[in-house]
């Protein structure tokens, strides 16, 4: 349950440390640069002379992925190979003297020296439709959380696209949500049955909190359609916003409630003929056995809290 196979930030750092070429790369096997075009003389063969299986950051796994396909006319290897994404690499591939730094090349990731905007532009050349129309105005884009902050390319599978591994990528920044996912009552994220992206659209959306659908309730109804109604007798807060009573990422209370009834209900209800009786320790064993305090509290009678379709269900007891 608590498996966090490899900390994605840690792995990413290790990878970026290797790929953020700053002079430590060996210059063996490099060919003279094609200085006219700026591109390397032999394309990927130039790059792979150094970045092979023996490199600290092997890149050959890319060929197992869609990025390594020659058959996709938009793919890097049907075009300028490594330099489709990394840009012209002639200068970078040039031999350097001991102690000198390798010329920089476009690299990717949050610690890269390449501006995030430039990194993202390289990705969006092909992935504009994957990012979606909302990307540029999204919270991630506005805060310089670029494509390579979450996605990895030189690996057999991109962790953020794998249901079981995606949460670890998100939790690198969203630490509070990681804590909440380990609480007693949660959605099945830590059981690898659900990914963050089933509710959230990291590339931006029309909804609040980068939700995948237009509103909080639309998102919840995608899996909990039985709560959708419309009911004859509505519970207006439930129709308006599920998060008024529930918290999505984890709770110590059953049903992911924000607080226990009766206090949760009494924040909005204090009615004539059904007064807002305080639930006190005197009402629970060994002193008492009040139905208001114990088991379901208000739900012992008002079970249809999400709405009722019973003609006599106006108080949500039917």
């Amino acid at each position, binding site marked *: 349950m608590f498996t966090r196979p490899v900390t994605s930030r840690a792995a990413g750092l290790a990878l970026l440390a290797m790929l953020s070429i700053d002079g430590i790369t060996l210059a063996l096997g490099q060919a003279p640069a094609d200085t006219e075009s700026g591109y390397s003389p032999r394309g990927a063969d130039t790059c792979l002379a150094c970045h092979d299986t023996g490199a600290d950051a092997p890149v050959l796994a890319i060929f197992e992925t869609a990025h390594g396909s020659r058959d996709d006319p938009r*793919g890097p290897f049907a075009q300028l190979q490594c330099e489709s994404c990394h840009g012209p690499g002639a200068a970078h591939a040039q031999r350097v003297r001991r102690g000198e730094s390798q010329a920089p090349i476009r690299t990717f990731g949050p610690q890269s020296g390449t501006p995030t905007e430039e990194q993202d532009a390289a990705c969006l050349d092909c992935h504009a439709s994957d990012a979606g129309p909302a990307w540029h105005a999204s919270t991630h884009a506005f805060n310089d959380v670029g494509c390579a902050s979450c996605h990895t390319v030189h690996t057999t599978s991109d962790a953020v696209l794998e249901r079981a591994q995606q949460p670890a990528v998100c939790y690198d920044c969203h630490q509070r949500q990681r804590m909440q996912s380990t609480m007693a009552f949660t959605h099945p994220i830590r059981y690898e049955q659900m990914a963050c992206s089933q509710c959230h659209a990291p590339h*931006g959306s029309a909804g609040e909190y980068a939700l995948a659908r237009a509103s909080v309730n639309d998102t919840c109804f995608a899996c909990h359609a039985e709560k959708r109604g419309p009911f004859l007798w509505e519970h207006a807060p439930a129709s308006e916003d599920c998060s008024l009573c529930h918290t999505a990422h984890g709770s110590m209370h059953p049903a992911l409630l924000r607080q226990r009834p009766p206090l949760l209900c009494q924040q909005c209800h204090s009615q004539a003929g059904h007064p807002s009786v305080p639930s006190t320790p005197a009402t629970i064993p060994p002193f008492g056995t009040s139905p208001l305090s114990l088991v379901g509290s208000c739900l012992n009678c008002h079970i249809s809290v999400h709405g009722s379709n019973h003609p006599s269900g106006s108080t949500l007891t039917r």
Partner: protein
Amino acid sequence: MSTAAFSAMARTAPCIAALVLAVDAASAQPVVPEDWDCRFCAFPSGSVASFWLGSAFVSDASGKFGTYTGLDDEGFYAVADGTWRRWLDDGQVWSVRVDDLGLKSRSIALDGGRPGSYRVRAQYDAIPNIRYDGIRTPFASGTRALLPSDWVTASSTAGFATLAANERSVAISHDREQLMTGIEWRARESLDIRAEFRRDARSGNQLIAGSFAAVSAWLPAPLDYVTDEVEVAVGHDRPNAAFEVGYRGSRFSNDAPTFEWQNPFTPFTAGADFGRLALAPDNRARQLYATGSVRFGRSHVAAQLSEGSIEQDDPFVAATINPAIDAVALPRQSLNGRVDTQRLTVDVASRVSSRFRVSARVERDERDNKTQVASFTRVLTDLAVVGASLNAPYDFERSRVRADASYRLPRRMQVTVGAERDRWERNLQARQRTRETELWAEVDVRRWESLRFSARVSDSQRRGSDYSVLDRGSALQNPRLRQYHLADRDRSVAAIDLSYAPVRAVTAALHVESANDRYSRSELGLNAGDARRLTFDVAFAPDTRWNAYAAFARDDLDLRQTGSQQFGPGDWRAETDESTKSQSFGAVWRAPSERLELQLDVNATESRSQTSVLTGNPQALFPDFHTKIRGVNVSGTYTVNPRLRVRVTYRYERYANADWQLDGIDTATIPSILTVGAWIPKYAVDMLTVAFSYTPARDQ
């Protein structure tokens, strides 16, 4: 769909499309040199597969441990995972993946197609959900919960003479099966079409309460839901613009829409021997959406419009099944309910210069409930006619405007300021209109590539129209009460973030936040809420051979509210203090030979909630709600040879809780409620897994 919605959509969509076409620009592609023959490129061919087979032993039975995983019984389980992938000569790639085939949480996925041309996906997931291992109940299961023939009714649970003899154990659980199939097709350059079908089926039982006025019984009731959803979308993208239109349709059906149960108590009125609940009605929803974005130089404009409806027209059940009550006429036989929803969002983001960027969002959200209002004669829990009530179809309109501006100062400092205005207009609520204004500012400082510090403060105020007590034919609310989501609220938030990477191998991050809500004009209801949050994590990754992490998080929440038991001024107060803290650490190490990999993960999360109630007498303190989960996961994988690997995993999880609402409450503990002894038992489970992986030779 409303005429206004149609016209709004009709106006917006062509505008977006026109902008898409207007700003399109061709981009020149460099020519690939002929001698770039990619000799070192390891393009795959043929097929590759890998299978994990083995066994797992679980030391103890626990529904809580087994929920979502199916590991709920003590004993042995089969481990069966596998992947297979094949690359065809024409560029197609197909893969099949199976996970947890030996468990109730199995999943099977097919994914394939030709990259850049089309993709086909299909996935099946089974998710067991075990709410309670075994409740105790005298009721028979099914859509009609009957009591045993020798049942003796009584006015309180103490008088249920045959209860103990008739209690049987029933597990409260359901199995969820999800099927998804989808296709994505790049029909033409820049034109994508995708279609998906999803089915979500749940079957099993649930625990619900059925009441007769002041007495009630908890009952196992059937749960049999199916939700089908179809989504079709067409997207068009150009270098400077993108556009997508789509349709989403969803249908929910419940094969157990009503539930009847026998009254275990002596009926208050003649004929009240059975009660009936209306469970979730069938419903359907549809939504049309269009999104588009256009780039103008360094600016982007995105618009998203969705328009949909939710409909529900299940036949009503009778107002009562009490034969002693004369038939009650219904104003109609079904709800014919319909809610139209519309949402429009326009985003503008501009990097005005390399230092200055702005973004703004305008949103409008509308829920238009077209369900007719009628007067329904109310039979109080199948006991007696008590008058009539009007249904209150709920509508709202929300409009929100938000803007951010960020300026990068010299010395790698950035300042961001923003504002938001959020307006709600609701019908049939105690407060018709609310508006909330929020202002915030943030400073972000970076030093030496390794240090980043940011501080953010925000302040918001919610105010609104007059608050009034609604009279809808049922009990009135205390006029001093302010529902917390409608009440005046002052909120202030302050947060700091610090991240530090002294060397490439180490990163550390700290987040501290304080949020305070004040409902100073709420005489009754929620008065205040104070939250404090802290997270800290450090990661260490010296090389690709090993890495380690540690994280700590803590959340504290204090709530204060006031109530009135005399339907007058406040005469009791409650304070709830909740805290959750979580620690985790772990490491992965790979031997230089790459043959051995070891992994460790440890996690401990503890939550505590304490409530005190002040009623004029000395302060009364409840026992704590308390949950504690501790887990350890250790695994080692040894590569015997390129074909064979062995993995040994040990997992330990311990769950402890204290819940005074449930713990020790037996079926007859509460005189007026027949309960089911449903509480979540503590557990400590060890699990040992041994599995072997076989990777056949690559088929070329």
